[in-house]
């Protein structure tokens, strides 16, 4: 990008939009250090006591651990299933492929309220006395993450020579050996990226979790429950700030991975 493009209207618009997108979250981070109990201007001074209070709040820490554990487990499952589907879809042709693609992509666009409600009904139908728990939430998280995992992996594999697996088998590897030696290594950045994306999504997820949560809380659920207590607001804001920063780091890492070693990278030099 040349220097004069930096002051072009295009870039200004981009910068404005980026500012618009980041301003609210920057605000939250700023307020998390504000020495005051309400979220109003002017700022009242710098403090870290909300963070300290955060560390001392038992339910918050529990919810945090729950979210982390839930995130890791559900992401592993979603990534595994999504990777299998991604490999199958990008390398094979089979009857019902289009139907499967449609089914696997639907959770992406179906409103989360419907997904949450439908799963609730499923669980209650199987066993009316079923206790909702983190496990039921986890199921919901896997469902909503499978499409993106599949798309990332399939998209990455599609960028590579279709004959690579054949070449490996021609050289003596079994199909499963080929998966291990060729397909999975090539897909690795996408798989890790899919895992990180799933984790981030699961960690932040609220709309579906709301319907499937039991007595144990996840962080977003906990956060929501505290919103009705005005006195708790600064604590919430501090928590929000932590989540925001952690998410940013994870997402940047995940996006960088997605672009690693891409065979066909294009630039738009006009």
């Amino acid at each position, binding site marked *: *990008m040349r220097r004069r*493009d930096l002051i072009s209207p*295009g870039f200004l*618009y*981009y910068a404005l*939009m980026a500012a618009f*997108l980041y301003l*609210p*979250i920057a*605000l*939250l981070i700023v307020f998390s250090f504000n020495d005051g109990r309400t*979220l*109003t*201007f002017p700022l009242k001074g710098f403090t870290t006591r909300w963070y300290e209070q955060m560390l001392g709040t038992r339910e918050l820490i529990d919810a945090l651990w729950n979210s982390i554990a839930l995130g890791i487990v559900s992401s592993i499952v979603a990534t*595994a*299933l999504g990777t*299998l*589907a991604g490999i*199958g879809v990008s390398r*094979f042709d089979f009857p019902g492929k289009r139907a*499967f693609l449609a089914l696997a992509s639907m*959770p*992406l*666009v*179906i*409103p*989360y*309220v*419907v997904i949450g409600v*439908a*799963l609730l*009904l*499923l669980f209650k139908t199987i066993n*009316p006395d079923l206790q909702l728990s983190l496990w039921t939430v986890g*199921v919901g998280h896997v*469902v909503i993450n*499978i499409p993106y995992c599949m*798309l*990332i992996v399939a*998209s990455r594999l599609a960028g590579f020579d279709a004959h690579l697996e054949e070449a490996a088998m021609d050289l003596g590897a079994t*199909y499963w050996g080929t998966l291990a030696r060729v397909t999975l290594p090539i897909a690795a950045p996408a798989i890790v990226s899919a895992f990180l*994306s799933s984790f*981030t*999504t699961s960690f*932040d997820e609220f709309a579906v979790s*709301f*319907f499937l949560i039991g007595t144990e809380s996840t962080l*977003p659920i906990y*956060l*929501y429950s505290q919103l009705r207590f005005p006195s708790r607001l600064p604590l919430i804001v501090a928590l*929000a700030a932590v*989540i*925001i920063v952690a*998410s940013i780091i994870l*997402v940047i890492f995940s*996006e*960088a991975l997605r672009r690693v070693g891409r065979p066909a990278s294009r*630039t*738009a*030099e006009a």
Partner: protein
Amino acid sequence: MIHERRRVAALMLPPALWLVLLFLAPMVIMAAYSFRAGTFEPERSIFTIEQYQKFLAHTAYHRLLLQSILVAFVVSMLCIVLAYPIAYFLAFRAGSLQYTLLTILIVPAWISYLLRILAWKVILGSSGLLNSFLISAGLIREGSPILLYSRDAVIVALVYVWIPFAALPIYSALQRIDRRLLEAAADLGCAPWEAFFRVTLPLSVPGLVAGFFFVFIPTVGEWVTPTLVGGVSGTMYGNIIQDLFVRANDWPLGAVMSLVMLALVLVQIAVFVRLSPRGLSDLAGA
């Protein structure tokens, strides 16, 4: 050939099973519930269509559904209009920086939805940023509460959430345009603006369509944002469903309402796929 069938089965069965049992089956069960007389036994075993009748009679629900569709439409249009210049800038002007700048744009999209709406509560609240700013600038005398807890607040918050998602498919489509087409247009006499309207814009329409639907479809069912910043006037269709399931415990009616929305969504998806077959790959491709 047998080798291949076994491999395909081994690869595809686990995800297929999960999706069928834990995604498709729930939808089917929900459909079944819509024909039940009540949430729990003994009403649950009674098969009836009265829930549908209830829904059809409840014009308030219809109105709310239409309002929600309207809100979703406004949000989607705003998103693609606002996102287009960004996508254009990234695809045509940003050169080697485009991936970095795109990532910067995407990052907020991945940050907790809940938190981002919360941030807007801060900004729009009666003592929030906007009001404080207006007060200190002398434009108004005291905090105006109408900014928050209204349908407009919902729209603003949703646009904020969805702009990055609208930008992605538009960017994908623009990036895919062969630059040589623009060279040809110039060669044939087009000024840059003309080339944009005659070549670039038409070719980017699939991305626009994808962006529109990607925002529109989930927004119709929104309930979290209305709950947090919508107040009474900002209530949307999704709020009713949530209420029916959590507070009123009227699952059959809730199921009916969900199915109505689901049917709407599926129709939209069908329209989208017809209009823009590449759409799905656009979403993941960038």
